């Protein structure tokens, strides 16, 4: 059984309340460590299973959890304190790798930003934020158009933080992307997951931004890390898009006495590779069709993966 406060963590990860998938992954890893230290290997495994199932789209979460689980499984005979210590070190290492990936990807991406460029982005992304920060630090002037990014509205946080960095920011509603696209030089998107065919899963609205950019011949760059590439998709796993937390949308309806109206609000959408000019990671800039090669380099060919669910069930059986 997973204790109630961890139960709540699962819910927060599921509904996308933590907007950035990097932040969600850090949060989930910390909770797994807590479950391990306080409840043992069994509770750790159950929580890890629940968390990865809560947000199966997050390749970063799944890939990082896989590494952590391998570490725990390899040393499961040892006393709990030692396993917990090893796990803690593993999580530190993973976080360090993700943080350096943000810097390395941004260092590549910033070279593509020319002085005077107007960029467009959506939702909240640590990767995109880092690119803008670098460009500003180089003294290059840049303007950023940020979409509101409903449901959730994380665009407001993005706009607010970019503006506090001294960036010239314009906020628009999600509907206005085709209207503003004429004035945009480049679109920067982040990623929840990059699939084997180079498609990018990201906050809902991203694919219509990419479509509008494609129509207007505006370049689309995805700034991310190879840790968000999903090796499972090579073996035919489908990326299932979860429903967003639409409580705000429903609350507005309720206030107007419109409880009878149904709401449909997918959390992510899929941008096809044709609409993406390049995917930028800590390994450099690549065409979307090269995602397959990146997966091969990382996981071997055909990808050799620790079957996460099986490994976790095994750990749960052992208890501890």
């Amino acid at each position, binding site marked *: 059984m997973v204790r109630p406060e961890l139960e709540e963590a699962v819910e927060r990860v599921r509904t996308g309340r933590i907007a950035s998938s990097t932040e969600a992954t850090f949060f989930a890893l910390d909770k797994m460590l807590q479950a391990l230290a306080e409840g043992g290997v069994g509770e750790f495994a159950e929580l890890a299973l629940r968390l990865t199932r809560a947000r199966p789209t997050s390749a970063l979460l799944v890939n990082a959890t896989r590494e952590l689980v391998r570490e725990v499984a390899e040393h499961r005979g040892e006393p709990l304190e030692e396993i917990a210590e090893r796990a803690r070190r593993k999580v530190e290492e993973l976080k360090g790798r993700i943080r350096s990936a943000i810097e390395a990807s941004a260092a590549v991406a910033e070279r593509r930003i020319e002085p005077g460029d107007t960029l467009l982005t959506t939702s909240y992304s640590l990767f995109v934020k880092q690119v803008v920060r670098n460009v500003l630090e180089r003294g290059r002037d840049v303007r950023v158009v940020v979409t509101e990014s409903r449901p959730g509205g994380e665009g407001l946080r993005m706009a607010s933080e970019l503006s506090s960095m001294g960036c010239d920011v314009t*906020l628009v*509603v999600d*509907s206005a992307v085709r209207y503003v696209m004429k004035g945009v030089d480049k679109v920067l998107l982040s990623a929840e997951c990059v699939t084997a065919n180079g498609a990018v899963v990201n906050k809902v609205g991203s694919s219509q931004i990419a479509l509008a950019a494609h129509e207007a011949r505006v370049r689309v760059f995805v700034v991310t890390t190879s840790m968000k590439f999903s090796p499972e998709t090579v073996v035919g796993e489908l990326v299932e898009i979860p429903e967003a937390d639409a409580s705000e949308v429903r609350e507005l*309806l309720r206030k107007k006495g419109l409880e009878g109206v*149904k709401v449909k609000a997918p959390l992510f959408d899929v941008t096809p590779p044709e609409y993406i000019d390049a995917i930028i990671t800590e390994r450099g800039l690549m065409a979307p069709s090269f995602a397959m090669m990146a997966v091969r380099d990382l996981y071997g060919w055909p990808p050799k993966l620790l079957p996460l669910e099986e490994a976790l069930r095994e750990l749960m059986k052992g208890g501890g």
Partner: protein
Amino acid sequence: MGLAVPEEVARIASDIREMRVRGAGRIAKAAATALMVAAERYPGSDAREFREYIRRVAELLLKTRPTAVSLPNAVSYVVGPLLRAPHVGSVEEARRLVVERASSFIRYADEALERIAEIGSRLVRDGDVVLTHCNSLAVVSIIKRAAQRGKRVSVYATETRPLFQGHVTARMLLEAGVDVTLIPDSSVRSLIRRVDKVIVGADAVAANGAVVNKIGTSLIALIAREHGVDFYVATETYKFSPFTLSGEPVVIEERPPTEVVPQEFLDKHPRLRVLNPSFDVTPPGYITGIITEVGVIPPSAALLVLEEIYGREGVREQASVAVDEEA
């Protein structure tokens, strides 16, 4: 010339400006009503003064919203004959002229909506999933009519930020017993595969068949085209703009930032700008057909509609007047 505009007329004007009355059709009818009220309430006896007074009311109404072409079309339909008349007779005659034109416009608008519902409902098949954006009486009438004819229709209504007109659409459809699902504007491309056709309203139709409508419409049209989904516009012909013939672009109104974010957010971020355009332009190539009271026309036939309304001469006049003004 110190005649004050009656309070009710001023209220209608401010309702249009503040978007308490919204939707091009409703705005046009409200403007016609305002002119009728103004004519009826005129207390004086000087016919020339009456004409100036009506001109002033017309100008007040025209200034309220820059984009909706239905507004100048309705106003010019109602007051045109009076203002163009070489000489005015008595106040009573002038008043009757304005009131008659206003009620004939309102009657025409109601009949047009009825015809659009009938024609448009034929395009809806049993079992169709229709996506709509914002709130259009023409679209709602079409869907309600199709449902009355026993067709099972379900509707995706976009929220339509910033003012959530999708809620109004949802309410109207819900009351008519139509199955309706509200979706965020950002999720149209995610859901388009489940949609059989898109039907939206219009604020203006340009001479080349481009459609001006609520911001986001052109993005939905682009998505529909990408997926081969039919994209229809339902609109009365009085929203066709004769002004665009002379090459005049349709002005896209930008509304206040506080419609998008609260004032506190703006105060906290003095450097942050909010761009809040009300409308966008859907190119004719993305439009399957325009459903009007005279029939379903291809967007390229917009000029035909304008010629039929204003006459070929009138259309040419419209173009040459503008050119003369330039010169």
